[in-house]
């Protein structure tokens, strides 16, 4: 140790945080052990005693975690840059809400967040312990063991040479080798942190991680019930676990889709879902959890699907761990654009995964013979038969997704060099569309089937109207919106059509079921609401993605000689970027778009004001996409902007921009010219073809316009048309400049020099800094609101279900 005294450091909060992390680890160990003892106690007295100790330990642990959380936030909030976490994840200029995002930008903070939710959920489970049945000590034991493992991630202890976890309270000078850090007054030079990655400076990033981690944390509880059930050979935990499982599915689903909303609003792949490994890794446990909820319901009604329930509810938690491993170990490397960076904790992360996977499967197979299900066969017309089929489809769909996502793991293990296919998103889409069709239909008919058996007559009578309405609605959708996605052939297009019908059927049938059969009773609406929400999500995805159109197809400024047909290009030439010059109106499909100005907000953020004017009407609107100087990458990152209509989004983002901060000093050079004359500029020549007098027949009375029709021919042989003019409106004279953007030329019509000889004066300005320009992409997403609304409805459905099941539990 060196004995230098450093000036200005705040060491106390870090020491407290460090201590709290270790305290939480120890308390969680004690709690796990004590709950285990209570769980296995032979006598009531010893159970009560151990339970008392366990509760105290757990409360200490929960309080430590929450305090740890607050201490870390204190470091960030007070900009204590002597701590590495504050230094590398925040800076002084950040507004308050993004200080929260800093918190979970790093691995340590997000582990702490996860642990925080376990503490909260654990306290709820514990205070209402009586409600959850006699295995509650086992459940708490598992929750605490998960907490032990999470605590090891943030203690940052060295055990011999093995670094256990990574502490968020570590000092900058302990971690870095900069020579300056050995100076006692080093803090004078570390005035500001490196800041938060600009892509995370978005309000979704304030709220998405807490919700998603609450989703992660809540999968632990059904898992804990399942473990306790297996240990005690007691399968009567389903009623207690169901409110938790449905709550988890709701929050988890919401968290995933908030991530999608963030991607849509802040990332630039032009959409909300890209089948990125990070996205897949969170989707897969959710799919399995939903499958598990359904098999759980089957078990409660019929006693079948017991093994499947243990498998699915267990796996959903284990898959959360697996996705943690995938996204945090750096193993995804080249395949994902947004995984965490490797913190050198791979061995520990793998250990965290295996310490749950191996015992759980060991226990599951060991107990398999005890998991007895009735031998009778399910009727093919029964609800349980199709619920199980649906769950299996969801599960296998999850298996396919995770198998594909795990290719980097496969490469690592076997040393292979397999890369994703040419169109990775389509590779998923072409499979999952069929899953969507099957699930859509099953969601629609499921409720119309009865447990045990359904009479065909009744079924047809009830399903008849929903079918008719579905047919009508689908026809309306196809007529007015249609599906414009022919890139992948007729087969896929057909599947998309079927998918839309299936999703519509799901919405309609569930709505009918609630109105007609449940008589619109709110109490029993949960399933219908959840299913309507889910199928709305499907419908929203199908319609918005298959009808996504590019408005910024580039047709300007390209030489007709060089124009290559987009279809002939081997890589399917996107040409989706269009260049806009400040003040120049550009044609973009239905709109004329003008880049009006840009404004700097603070030092780092530049807004571009774009005016979209609809060609057919006077309707116009402004959009403000921005670029943010990226503190971590020394470049800029673009934030899209979108105009929301009830039936579509116009979505725009800047793909590149040229910053001409220097003044444009070049001026117009006057030239005298007559019809047929040519004058030269640096890169070619300009010819005056004709002079048009009042060329616009619709011009208002009393205006006079003179327009020069000119052709600019560049050295490369490119030809451009230019029409500068003069407009006389009453007494005011307006000069109408024309620009040839590709040649950095601005032309003006100055005056008539000699009317008899037809000699005119024009101005020619050549400037590299002609105008500011930006390159952007513009998309239209129709009916994306169905997707967002669907998510809200689905989440409400899950919450209603959780509430209803909780009430049932109370009344029992």
């Amino acid at each position, binding site marked *: 140790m060196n004995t230098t005294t450093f000036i200005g450091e705040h060491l106390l909060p870090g020491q407290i945080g460090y201590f709290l992390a270790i305290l939480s680890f120890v308390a969680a160990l004690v709690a796990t052990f004590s709950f285990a003892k209570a769980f296995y106690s032979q006598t009531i007295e010893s159970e009560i005693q151990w339970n008392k100790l366990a509760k105290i330990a757990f409360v200490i642990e929960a309080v430590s975690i929450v305090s740890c959380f607050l201490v870390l936030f204190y470091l960030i909030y007070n900009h204590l840059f002597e701590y590495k976490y504050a230094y*590398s*994840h925040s800076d002084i200029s950040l507004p308050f809400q993004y200080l929260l995002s800093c918190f979970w*930008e*790093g*691995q340590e903070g997000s582990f702490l967040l996860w642990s925080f939710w376990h503490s909260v959920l654990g306290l709820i489970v514990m205070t209402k312990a009586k409600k959850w049945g006699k295995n509650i000590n086992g459940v708490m034991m598992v929750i605490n063991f998960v907490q032990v493992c999470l605590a090891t991630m943030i203690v940052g202890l060295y055990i011999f040479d093995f670094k256990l976890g990574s502490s968020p309270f570590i000092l900058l000078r302990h*971690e*870095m080798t*900069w*020579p*300056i850090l050995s100076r006692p007054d080093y803090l004078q*030079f*570390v005035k500001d942190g490196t800041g938060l*990655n600009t892509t995370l400076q978005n309000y979704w990033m304030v709220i998405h991680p807490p919700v998603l981690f609450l989703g992660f944390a809540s999968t632990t509880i059904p898992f804990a019930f399942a473990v306790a059930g297996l240990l005690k050979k007691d399968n009567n935990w389903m009623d207690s676990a169901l409110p938790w499982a449905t709550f988890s599915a709701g929050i988890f689903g919401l968290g995933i889709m908030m991530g999608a909303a963030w991607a849509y609003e802040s990332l630039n792949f032009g959409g909300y879902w890209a089948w990125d490994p990070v996205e897949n890794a969170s989707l897969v446990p959710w799919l399995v959890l939903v499958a598990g909820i359904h098999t759980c319901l089957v078990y409660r009604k019929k006693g079948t699907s017991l093994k499947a329930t243990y498998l699915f509810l267990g796996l959903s938690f284990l898959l959360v761990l697996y996705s943690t491993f995938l996204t945090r170990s750096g193993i995804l490397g*080249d395949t994902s*654009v*947004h*995984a*965490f*960076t490797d*913190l*050198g904790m791979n061995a520990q992360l793998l250990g965290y995964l295996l310490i749950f996977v191996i015992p759980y499967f060991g226990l599951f197979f060991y107990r398999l013979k005890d998991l007895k299900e009735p*031998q009778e*066969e*399910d009727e*093919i017309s029964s609800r349980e*038969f199709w619920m*199980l*089929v649906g769950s299996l489809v969801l599960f*296998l769909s999850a298996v*396919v997704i995770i*198998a*594909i996502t795990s290719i980097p793991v496969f490469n690592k293990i076997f040393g292979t060099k*397999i*890369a*994703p*296919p*040419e169109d990775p998103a389509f*590779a998923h889409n072409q499979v999952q569309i069929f899953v969507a069709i099957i699930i859509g239909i099953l969601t629609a008919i499921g409720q119309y089937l009865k447990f045990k058996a359904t009479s065909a007559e009744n079924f047809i009578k009830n399903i008849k109207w929903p079918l008719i309405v579905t047919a009508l609605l689908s026809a309306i959708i196809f007529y007015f919106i249609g599906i414009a996605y022919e890139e992948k052939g007729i087969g896929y297009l057909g599947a998309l059509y079927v998918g839309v019908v299936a999703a519509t059927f799901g919405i309609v049938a569930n709505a009918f079921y609630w109105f007609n059969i449940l008589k619109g009773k709110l109490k029993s609406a949960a399933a219908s609401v959840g299913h309507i929400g889910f199928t709305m999500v499907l419908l929203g995805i199908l319609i918005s993605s298959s009808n996504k159109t590019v408005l910024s197809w*580039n047709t300007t*400024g*390209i030489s007709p000689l060089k124009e290559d047909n987009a279809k002939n*290009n*081997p*890589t*399917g*030439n*996107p*040409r989706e*970027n269009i*260049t806009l010059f400040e003040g120049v109106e550009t044609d973009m499909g239905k709109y004329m778009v003008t880049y009006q100005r840009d404004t700097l907000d603070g030092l780092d953020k530049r807004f571009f004001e774009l005016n979209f004017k609809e060609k057919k009407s006077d309707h116009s609107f402004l959009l403000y996409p921005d670029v943010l100087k*990226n503190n*971590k*990458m*020394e470049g800029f990152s673009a934030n899209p902007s979108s105009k929301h209509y009830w039936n579509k989004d116009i979505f725009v983002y800047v*793909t*590149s921009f040229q910053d001409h901060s220097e003044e444009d000093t070049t001026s117009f050079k006057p030239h005298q010219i007559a019809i047929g004359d040519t004058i030269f500029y640096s890169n070619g020549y300009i010819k005056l073809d004709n002079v048009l007098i009042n060329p616009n027949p619709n011009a208002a009375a009393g205006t006079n316009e003179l327009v020069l029709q000119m052709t600019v021919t560049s050295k490369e042989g490119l030809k451009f048309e230019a029409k500068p003019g003069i407009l006389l409106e009453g007494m005011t004279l307006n000069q109408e400049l024309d620009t040839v*953007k*590709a040649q950095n030329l601005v032309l003006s019509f100055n005056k008539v020099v000699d009317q008899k000889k037809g000699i005119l004066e024009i101005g020619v300005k050549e400037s590299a800094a002609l105008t500011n*320009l930006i*390159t952007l992409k513009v998309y239209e997403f129709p009916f994306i609101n169905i997707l967002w609304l669907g998510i809200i409805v689905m989440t409400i459905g899950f919450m209603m279900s959780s509430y209803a099941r909780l009430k049932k539990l109370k009344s029992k």
Partner: protein
Amino acid sequence: MKKMHVVLLVLIAISIVVLISYTGDLSSYETVASAKQKEGKFVNLIVKMDKSIPVDYDPVKDPNLLKFHVQDSLGGKIAVVYHNTMPTDMEKSERLVLKGKVQGEVFECSSIVMKCPSKYKDNPNAMQEQPVTITN
């Protein structure tokens, strides 16, 4: 459970078929030399930019045309054409993963994944460099 077993087998069979057919779509990581031999085949290249030749990109002329040169770890060089805007910080990234195919003398690239020194989260190695501002 007989019918359910049939359903299960069918579903599993479908999943296996799906995964097998997926392996048919998979591509591979190649070096520049091996990619040239597989002209016209979709491959992935892991390369870095060859900075001795300037990047050709002019959004004024055509925002959807980017030409640059790359080099792989074995020294193989190739010109790349990318029909899109120039990704931010491309010149700063230490590694590029290019997807596309070799067409004649050039690599027709359909997507670029950049590995920046600090792409998304802070990277401890990149952080080890002392910031310029506090050197004195």
